[in-house]
Structures are given as structure tokens and as C-alpha cells.
């Protein structure tokens, strides 16, 4: 077959495939050329043979069997945070944490009762213990949060990575969200607006991380890093954490002093 005269095999395959470009010319040629029509018929015959190739039809319960085999392999999907909050196992953790905080408050009150002096002294002792419990617990929480944020913010994935696995950071962020919520509510009750505000911002960032997919594309990862950076949350967390350390170190016996510190920070 002369290539100048007849259609190429590629042209016939493309024509058979429904190629639109130059279709009119190919059709016109085929109408006139017996040899090319025969070539096309042979190509059709090959496809017809392929169509005749048997594919075993799976049994009627095939879909059920696929599911039964697949279901145990599916990882637990985290519900969204507000749903996850009410999951039984988390309630146990949250309950235990709440019990610890309450116990600390209770001890604080007993300490106050053990020193039957003036009412002012009772209040001072109680306030001191309460604040100390909160300061130490929140300080540790902020330290852990800072580590997660720093790790994510400073990570430099390889350019060849198509997906970046952040499952570990995600799990840590998820646990921190729950702690954070508790401390934020406590800070609010204590009237520490500055602390509550920082914890509120931190909670949003932690939620963002916790709700990300296990594996993210480099673009998604870059976007997450930018969001962390944009909110300046790392800086705020460090400032508050430093402040807490100072408070822990320099706690003065006068309750009035502690309250004034809180008021000062609230102003800031």
C-alpha cells in the first residue's frame, strides 16, 4: 500500500475512534478506495474480536463480598470536631481533665479553710492555688501547641513529594484542641480575656490542622504553613507562655497583685 495514495493505519484508527479532524476527507477517500475500506474492515474485525473476549461476570453477591472484605480495612474516620467532642472515649479524657481541675479548685478552697485568719487571707490562698494550677497547666499546653506549630511551620518537604503525610501532627493537634477548649473556658470564667483570646485564636489554627487530610499536596501544605504564619499565632503563643512563666516565678503573696497583673494583660 502506497502511503501517498492510501490512508495511513493511524488515520484509519483515529477515524474509527471518531476523530473529527479531517474526517470529511477520510470519508471521501474511503468512499472511493476499496483497499482502504478493506483495511478499515480489518481494524473493525480486531475490535469486534476484542469485544468478544469474555469477562467473567461476578456473582450476584459480588458487591457485598467486596464490602465485607474492605470494611475491616477502612481506617476510623474522624468525625468533625464538634461531633468528636461528644464521642464517648473523648468524654472520658475530658471528664478526667475536668475532674483534675475541679480537684485543684477544691484543694485551693481547703487550703483557704486551713488558715482561719481574715477573709482576705482565705481568698488569697485559694486564688493563689487556683491561679497556679491554671498557669502550670496552660503553660504546658502552650508548649506542646508551640511544638506542633513550629514543626509544621518549619517543615521543608522534598520537591519530589507528591503527598506529604501530616497524620502525626494532625493527631496531636486534635488532642490539643480538646485541651485548649477546656483552658479557654476556664480563662473566660477567670476573667482573663487576653488569655482566652489567644487560646481562641490557637484553637482555630489547631482545628485547621486537625481537620486537614492525612496526606496533603505540597500546595495544600504550603497554604497551611501560610495560614499559621499569617495569624502570627506562634508569636502570640510564645508571648503568653513567657508571661505565664514569669507569673509562675514571681507569684506574689498578695492576691491583689495577681489580679492587677491579669487586668494589665487584659488591657494589653
Amino acid at each position, binding site marked *: 500500500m502506497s502511503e501517498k495514495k492510501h490512508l495511513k493505519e493511524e488515520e484509519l484508527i483515529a477515524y474509527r475512534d471518531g476523530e473529527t479532524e479531517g474526517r470529511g476527507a477520510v470519508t471521501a477517500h474511503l468512499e472511493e478506495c476499496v483497499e482502504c475500506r478493506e483495511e478499515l474492515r480489518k*481494524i*473493525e474485525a480486531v475490535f469486534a474480536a*476484542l469485544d468478544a473476549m469474555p469477562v467473567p461476570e461476578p456473582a450476584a453477591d*459480588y458487591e457485598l463480598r*467486596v464490602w465485607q472484605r474492605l470494611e475491616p480495612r*477502612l481506617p476510623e474516620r474522624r468525625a468533625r470536631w464538634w461531633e468528636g467532642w461528644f464521642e464517648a472515649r473523648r468524654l472520658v479524657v475530658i471528664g478526667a481533665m475536668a475532674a483534675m481541675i475541679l480537684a485543684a479548685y477544691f484543694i485551693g478552697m481547703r487550703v483557704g479553710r486551713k488558715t482561719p485568719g481574715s477573709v482576705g487571707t482565705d481568698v488569697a490562698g485559694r486564688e493563689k492555688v487556683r491561679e497556679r494550677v491554671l498557669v502550670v497547666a496552660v503553660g504546658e499546653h502552650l508548649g506542646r501547641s508551640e511544638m506542633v506549630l513550629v514543626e509544621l511551620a518549619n517543615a521543608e518537604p522534598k520537591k519530589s513529594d507528591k503527598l506529604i503525610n501530616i497524620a502525626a501532627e494532625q493527631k496531636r493537634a486534635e488532642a490539643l484542641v480538646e485541651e485548649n477548649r477546656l483552658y479557654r473556658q476556664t480563662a473566660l470564667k477567670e476573667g482573663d480575656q487576653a488569655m482566652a483570646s489567644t487560646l481562641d485564636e490557637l484553637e482555630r489554627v489547631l482545628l485547621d490542622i486537625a481537620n486537614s487530610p492525612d496526606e496533603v499536596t505540597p500546595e495544600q501544605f504550603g497554604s497551611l504553613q501560610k495560614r499559621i504564619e499569617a495569624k502570627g499565632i506562634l508569636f502570640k503563643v510564645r508571648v503568653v507562655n513567657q508571661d505565664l512563666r514569669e507569673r509562675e516565678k514571681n507569684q506574689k503573696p498578695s492576691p491583689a497583685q495577681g489580679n492587677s497583673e491579669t487586668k494589665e494583660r487584659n488591657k494589653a
Partner: protein
Amino acid sequence: MREGIETAGIETSDAEAVERTLRGERDAYRVLVERHSRYVFRMAYRMTGNSHDAEEVVQEAFLRAYQKLKQFEGQANFGTWVYRIAANYTIDRMRARQAEQSRRQTVSAPREDGLEIDPMAMAKDPAPSPERLAASAQLAEKMKAALEALSPAERTAVVMRHWDGCAIEEIAAVLKSNTNATKNTVFRAVAKLRKALEPYAGGMGAARAMGSET
């Protein structure tokens, strides 16, 4: 692709099933598996040539789709999406297997152009008798051998294009190639199949010869 089966009398759309799965309802994912697994199996069987491998592809495709489900949100068709995941996994699996086989074969002449090995000669029967080839089971064997002789990319291209009617762009995405190269892969695959099957498939395509087109 097939859309919509009824579950307990209420039809659940793919989008709704995805949303419910993301909310933590495992049974919602079952709807998607039941709706699309048979179709994925057929494609996987044509690509791998055996039921065992096809079953593995179905399992892996739906597992991967579940793990990546958040990335699906907002896309139009779950069926197309899981099909593509399955096709990607199948071609990777075929290539890995071919690489393994190549390592084991001590005698294998590499092609000068560096492309994937063309084992077309293996599909050829040098002296087929007409009686033998008349049997449809034997023709099926020839077709199986001809498909096995294609490279993973060629086989993927021909399965996606011919059986599943995928656009060249879709095939190119799975092959991680451009559209022109993908078209060439399709041509190459058809030419090889033709070479291998034409002697035995001569009369089968007469019904759709040129006369019916014009």
C-alpha cells in the same frame, strides 16, 4: 458510568454518600462500593487479565478512595474518580510486575529506542491450523495472549479507550503523558493487536465495514 442504586428504598446520590462518609458514617461508603465496584472490576479484569488481580485492584482502589475522600469533595462524579484511582493503581501494579519479570529474564533483548519491551513474538503461533483456531476458546486464548503482549501503558490505553470510551485527556492523565503521546500509544496498541489477531479475526468485523459508515 452507572449512577444511582436504591438503598432501603431511598436513592442516595454519590455526593450525599460522600458527605455522609466524611461525617463518619461508614455505611454510606458501602453505597458507593456497591454502586461502582462491578464496573471497576470489569476494567481491572481487562487490564490485568485475571480475576484475582482484578479483585485486588477493586479492594485497593476503594481503600485509597476512602483515604483520599476529602480530596474528592466538590468533584462531579465519584464513579469516574474511583475508576481513575483504580486505573492508576493497575498500571503501577502492571509496571512493577513487568519490571520484576524483566529482572528475572536473563535473556531479553532491549529495544534500541529504550521503550517498554515488545513481547509480541510471544503471542504469535508460528503454525496455527485452521481447525484449531476455529474454536472460540482458542481465539480467546489468542486475544488474551495478544493483550498480555502489550506494554502496561498500551493495555491501559486500549482498555480505557475502546471498552470504557474514555477521552484521550483522561487516558493521558492516568499514563502521566501528553495527549499526542497518548494517541500514539493507542495507535501502537491497536496496531499490535491487529498484527496478532488479524489472521484469526478476519470475518468477525464484516458487519461494521465501511459500507455502514457512508
